[in-house]
């Protein structure tokens, strides 16, 4: 698992580097002593490919940890919910929904108390950011 994960990481990086390099070839290369927009991204992406190949060839020490899916899914889900709801539903519902989904990342289950806290926090967020700092998002509604 460890070795496979390592290979997968370096191969992904190498592929990303190669894709970036191919795209960079289409940028301008410049004329005479004027450097265009291509050389630096091309050099950087070529560097990523070379380092990734070295990473694949030369063994490394250290442990690779697999993702901890529960907190990962809850936190990512919370942010996705925020993105989907902040303009459609408003700041307060988006905040509460984001917090509720993120809360699922840990093992304790005290929903009633947490939701009360989340609603209070959302109200505070609206006061500070919308009323105080002028963030153009209404409390409710798009």
């Amino acid at each position, binding site marked *: 698992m460890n070795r496979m*994960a390592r290979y997968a*990481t370096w191969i992904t990086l190498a592929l*990303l580097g190669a894709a*970036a390099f191919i*795209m960079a070839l289409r*940028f*301008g290369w*410049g004329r*005479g*002593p*004027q*450097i*265009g*927009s291509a050389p*630096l*991204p091309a050099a*950087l*992406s070529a*560097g*990523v490919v070379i*380092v990734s190949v*070295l*990473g694949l060839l*030369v063994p*490394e020490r*250290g442990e*690779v*940890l*697999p*993702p*901890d899916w529960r*907190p*990962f899914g*809850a*936190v*990512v889900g*919370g*942010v*996705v919910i*925020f*993105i989907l709801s*902040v*303009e459609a539903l408003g700041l307060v519902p988006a*905040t509460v929904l*984001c*917090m509720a989904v*993120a*809360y699922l*990342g*840990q093992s*304790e289950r005290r929903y009633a108390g947490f939701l009360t*806290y*989340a609603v209070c*926090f959302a109200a505070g*967020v609206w006061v500070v*950011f919308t009323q105080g*700092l002028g*963030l*153009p*998002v209404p409390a409710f509604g798009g």
Partner: protein
Amino acid sequence: MENIILGLSTALLPMNLLACLGGVILGTAIGVIPGIGAMAAIALILPLTFSLDPTTGIVMLAGVYYGAEYGGSTASILLNLPGTPSNAITCLDGYPMAQQGRAGVALFITTIASFVGGSIGIVVLTLLTPVIVDVAVAFGPAEYFALILLCFVAVSAIGALDVRKNIAMILIGGLVSTVGIDLYDGSYRYTFGRDELIDGLSLVPVAMGLFGLSEIILSVRNGGTRAKQSITLRSMLPTREDWRRMGLPMLRGAGFGCIFGPLPGTGPSVAALTSYATERRVSKEPHEFGQGRVEGIAGPEASNNAAVQTAFIPTLSLGIPGTPTMAIMIGALMIHGVVPGPMLVQNEPALFWGLVMSFWIGNLLLLVLNIPLISVWVALLNIPYRLLYPSIIVLICIGSYSISNSTFDVGLMLGFGVLGYVLRRQGFAPAPLLIGFVLTPMLEENLRRGWLMGRGDPLYFASSPMAAIVLLMCFALGGLALAGPALRRRRARRLNDIPNPGGHA
């Protein structure tokens, strides 16, 4: 002297004083939360400063920085959960002291050592920056190119993890920074037809994702450990023996901080580590280190805070950050329309000296506030993490959203958060990525200007003695970093070859 008066008159403006106080308190409060380091704290607070005057905004962010460094030690001592790598050293003797019922003393020593180290760092910053600025005014593209390259090499070589991984991260950070329209020839790089990418990626979602969100995901599982502690003012007072023991380590630590703070790639972590190692070496009872020695806290904490202050020397005088945190500070300065470098000190003395004087005030505030407020920070530590982390996620989302009032930046922050998390689990450090992201545009600009000035001759970049020396340093450091693992293996083999005098297997 007139610069100091100018700085004081700027720093003592009510708005700047308030910003400094707010920054120090917010920074300490965020730094206290385990797993959230100074970088995440600055990234979190950065959007709040957008509406402020540049000087006020930077004063606040600087307060957040040293406040978070201080706050991180509280979690280290009480919970054995460091907020930053430099605070990890404080755990070694701070946590055993807390277990022995001396948490208050440990926290008091941390406060005093932080103040002493920070103050010595500010003196060095005040004296050294104008000298460097005088030299740096004459720097051209060749010198800047070489210095940025040195920063890259140092970050790759000195980082604790695999050199290849650090190099890969710098290169990826550099690639990410090239996204957007190229101002020289107007071509679009990696924009994929998205209008939001034309202006390039903003620092805030990148930093918030890499350091804020990914740290939250990592700490959800183990952030819930809490130990009930109650600290009274009386329990914080050190004994006469404690006072005697902490004096010299603090001064030595501050010295290390002043040396390592301005050097690229080192910063507070290396300073704290060196200070701890030195204290252990000079001690008559080295075996007691790790069991609650006062010197094991005083030295590293002083060095840590001295390094935090002196890290501003290259950042402000050359515009080149030595550490990832300073890279965020540079980004913050640029967001506020301030270009760091020698011209900043010459053209905007009120901002520069105001900032330096605000460091003094901030350090004084840390000292005055944190001794009576320690029970508040301890109470903050007792707030269940299951309530704290969802709140922080919301603040990160709103901070990203506020950049251009668009969910695109929140999505970008999420993307970098996921990237940061995955890379950390794979043993990659995200800090070099940020250094690459911030410094590559400067590297490209100086490369282009230098290439033009040298009429396409690459030797132009080694044409001045300063540039040539720095390039040689790059090669030497790079060579050492690449050869290091092989040398270590050879030394280990040679040690294994030595016959065992005892004759045992």
